[in-house]
């Protein structure tokens, strides 16, 4: 493992930055992070040398593709410290992973069974559970503190004996607040409920330990952690995955098929119907291997220092309202805010003209926006390759935007 961290050196591993003729301050990493060179190279090499379908053929290309695909599963397992690679299901993304769990588990639940989510969830971790209400499943929503953090003290009363699963974000895509997972898991275990964590935002900030987290399911996307789009991961405890029915049905996920019935392959294959995102899995594995070589204590120190600059700079702007905790609560290096009465889309438009990319909108978290009493906000999200010049450009851009829009 390398020691220390220099964002200027890390930028050299991201072709995006060297491809720009003009400096561009990319602060929309919570939506999609730039792709690491290792992913580009691995995917190019795979499609050039090993392109074939997996778990079907026995010619040499098929063998190599299958080996690469299954090796990718092992790399992901190491990145999140899963007990075994068979607990890794490749999906199309976080959304697909959560829909898989909701549809599969939901098909086994009975009317009156309950699932708990929070009001801070991304729509991807809300709508799949909402849909189960049509089958009589009861959706309970954990309220939030004023600053948007989960009101974990309410869990004890919210989680009843019919609760089957608690599905919450590991870290909010709007406020960056990191969930007190231990409190959620402890409350769920009181009634024997499972816990699913939406890790879409957290995964960009270093290797994980799902066993230490104590959850039952964990979902994340490749494009959020410097990998390709079109691939995501569902991790589930092996004992649970093997008890779950498939979500999608098709090729590659069966034991035996007869005209009027079929049985299913063991997990993870039973959840990977059709041709999976093979090249993307290879790319994801390559970038996760690279990330595992980083000194993450140093990366986190860099991110924390930048976040401090960002929050202090934003709070110094008259009329700026920061959404989310500012009291030292653990949070990812991102900030959502409103500025006076200026519309987020107008702010983002002017900032883009200044070479600063941020996101404006409701961030697919409309219930959380409602909690804050706003329709939309601007979000600046930092990644490891950002530096002080990016924060300075944002702050200067906001001053300029205020003049342009006045």
């Amino acid at each position, binding site marked *: 493992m390398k020691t220390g961290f220099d964002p200027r050196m890390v930028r050299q591993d991201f072709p995006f930055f060297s491809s720009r003729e003009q400096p561009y301050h990319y602060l929309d990493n919570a939506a999609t992070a730039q792709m690491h060179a290792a992913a580009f190279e691995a995917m190019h090499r795979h499609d050039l040398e090993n392109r074939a379908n997996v778990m079907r053929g026995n010619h040499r290309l098929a063998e190599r593709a299958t080996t690469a695909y299954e090796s990718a599963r092992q790399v992901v397992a190491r990145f999140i410290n899963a007990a075994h690679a068979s607990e890794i299901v490749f999906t199309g993304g976080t959304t697909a992973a959560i829909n898989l769990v909701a549809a599969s588990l939901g098909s086994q639940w009975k009317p009156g069974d309950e699932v708990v989510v929070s009001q801070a969830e991304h729509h991807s971790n809300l709508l799949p559970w909402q849909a189960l209400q049509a089958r009589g499943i009861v959706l309970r929503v954990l309220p939030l503190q004023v600053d948007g953090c989960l009101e974990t003290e309410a869990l004890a009363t919210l989680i009843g004996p019919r609760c089957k699963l608690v599905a919450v974000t590991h870290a909010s895509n709007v406020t960056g607040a990191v969930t007190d997972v231990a409190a959620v898991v402890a409350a769920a275990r009181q009634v024997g409920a499972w816990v699913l964590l939406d890790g879409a935002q957290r995964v960009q900030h270093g290797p994980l330990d799902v066993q230490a987290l104590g959850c039952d399911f964990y979902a994340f996307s490749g494009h959020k952690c410097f990998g390709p789009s079109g691939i995501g991961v569902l991790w589930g405890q092996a004992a649970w995955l093997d008890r779950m029915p498939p979500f999608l049905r098709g090729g590659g996920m069966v034991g035996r098929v007869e005209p009027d019935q079929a049985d299913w392959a063991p997990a993870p294959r039973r959840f990977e119907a059709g041709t999976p995102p093979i090249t993307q899995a290879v790319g994801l594995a390559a970038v996760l291997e690279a990330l595992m070589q980083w000194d993450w204590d140093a990366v986190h120190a860099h991110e924390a220092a930048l976040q401090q600059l960002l929050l202090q700079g934003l709070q110094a702007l008259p009329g700026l309202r920061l959404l989310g905790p500012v009291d030292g609560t653990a949070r990812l290096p991102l900030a959502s805010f409103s500025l006076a009465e200026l*519309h*987020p*889309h*107008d702010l983002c*438009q*002017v900032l*883009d*003209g200044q070479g600063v990319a941020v996101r*404006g*909108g*409701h961030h697919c978290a*409309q219930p959380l*926006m409602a909690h804050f009493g706003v*329709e*939309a906000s601007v979000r600046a999200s930092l990644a490891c390759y950002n530096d002080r010049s990016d924060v300075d450009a944002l702050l200067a851009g906001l001053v300029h935007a205020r003049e*342009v*829009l006045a």
Partner: protein
Amino acid sequence: MSDALYQQAIKNLARAAHGAGRLEIPDGSALRDNPLCGDRVRMEITRHDGMISTLGHDTRGCLLCRASASLIGRHAIGQDQAGIQAAQQALEQLLTQPDPPAALPWPELALFVPAHPFPSRHGCVLLPFQTLLAALKDSDDNA
């Protein structure tokens, strides 16, 4: 480049908020959202002989959306459905086509030409027109 979008004339148009308000008894109404940002436009109209006789809109949106709604408030009275459709089609053309229309039914539509390079903002500009056309259809349905 994007600063040109926010020229003084378009800011003035948005702030003027022509036609802002609600009608007591509309003949037709519609409510539309922008799924990207949660912006919302409500249009209410009354009609006489097919022409829009009164109009009120409640617009919660970005500067471009509010300018567009204000433009409707300035010009829609006395227009029939064909007139509104012609204005919307001209607007769509100047937003999406390389060359703007030779003639614009409402001259201030030209204020939105700088939005041409920004497809993600076209929905902001068009939302009030789409809402008004839905309100016209609603009044037809209620007739």
